[in-house]
């Protein structure tokens, strides 16, 4: 079958990777199945819930809506690439401290969305936080603890380098 597979070279969590598949394969599927990065969750599969969030060239995206072809040459960060060894990112530490995670399905996406938010708004207003996390749905926490985790992460970031 001509043209049916492509070989896509990208960087994933700081390591070079080659992903092979149909160009329209959802990046979500390649990351989970081929690289076993199962921290990338599938929730709705239609860009509504944010469970499959990743950073693609530094920008928050839903990996269920990214065709594999669009990862060519890209730099990707999944939740697996957020901590540095044993050292958690300030956002991760804050989610643990504030009880911002329950079942855990939304958590990888929430953490990445919160990181992305804090990069653009280091001192976010309440409205900024609500806007920044609006694309990430949680069915357990009622959001209050997630919200508090983001505020806590701001305080932690202010205390020094992440």
């Amino acid at each position: 079958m001509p043209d049916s597979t492509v070989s896509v070279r990208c960087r994933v969590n700081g390591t070079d990777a080659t992903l092979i598949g149909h160009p329209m394969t959802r990046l979500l599927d390649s990351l989970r199945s081929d690289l076993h990065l199962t921290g990338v969750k599938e929730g709705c599969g239609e860009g509504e819930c944010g469970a499959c969030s990743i950073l693609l060239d530094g920008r928050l995206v839903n990996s269920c809506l990214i065709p594999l072809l669009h990862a060519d040459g890209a730099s990707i960060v999944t939740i697996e690439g957020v901590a540095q060894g044993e050292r958690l990112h300030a956002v991760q530490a804050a989610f643990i401290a504030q009880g911002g995670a329950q079942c855990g399905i939304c958590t990888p996406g929430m953490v990445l969305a919160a990181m992305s938010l804090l990069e653009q708004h280091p001192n976010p207003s309440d409205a900024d936080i609500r806007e920044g996390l609006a694309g990430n749905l949680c069915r357990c926490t009622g959001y209050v603890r997630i919200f508090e985790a983001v505020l806590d992460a701001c305080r932690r970031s202010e205390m020094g380098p992440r």
Partner: protein
Amino acid sequence: MPTLGDGPAVRSYLPAFTLVAPKDLQSALRMLADEPGVWRPFAGGTDLMVLFEAGRLPPGRYVSLWGLKELGGIDVAPDTVSIGALTTYADVARHPVLRNEFPLLCRAAEQTGGAATQNRGTLGGNIANGSPAADTPPALLVYDAELELISARGARRMRYDRFHSGYKTMDLAGDELIRSITLPRGRVSWIESYRKVGTRKAQAISKVCFAAAADMDGTLIRDVRVALGSVAPAVVRCLHTESAMRGRTVDDALVEAAAAALTRDIAPIDDVRSTAKYRLHVSRNLLIQFATETLSRRTH
């Protein structure tokens, strides 16, 4: 009686699709020209990938435009701002000149989906997708946007308010792409209003989307634009309403005339998101609020 097609959504069959990324705009246009009607454009994928997942994307060949430099960029000239079709909502929303001079467009971009969608969805895609519920088109109509359409045959420009002809139909040939959207500058003194009404504030698809702007001289409406989304087969510029308002002073009679004219501009329907009755009522209220509160608040 249930038929085969009524079952739950099933993901599309991958081998029935082709997605190719040409190296530059010329190659993309050549593909579109050489096999007319065969290749369909694919930009940020925020709509097409959703359809794909639901098994509702027509199988066939898609040409990826994402990353084509010639379709990106925001050009600020003395009299106009030209926005490349591939500009994302996020890039629209944080552009300083757009924020300052075209706030309705930035508000629309900020209210389209969540952050992840805003990082991938494109202004050109929002237009070419042709959804009557798209949120940036009403703002573009208010700003008298012009489109530059490009094909291997050459480029042409057209007024955006003449682009959409009906539900998902538009004046765009099979070999053409939207290259850029141009907005005339010089409207900073106009008084503006943008309201998106949906089930919740963020992420929801509009039930009604309202954009309007007026050039005021005291209580006199020198010029006005009114545009709505989700209330007709395509986004609509409300020419009857504008005529009823232009050159008049803001008073009860004007508000009544404008609200009456609005019913000639829009044709809302019942659908999964709302009802015709609700949409008509809300559209009318938003127009009245614009004509009374918004215009009078700023002119006194």
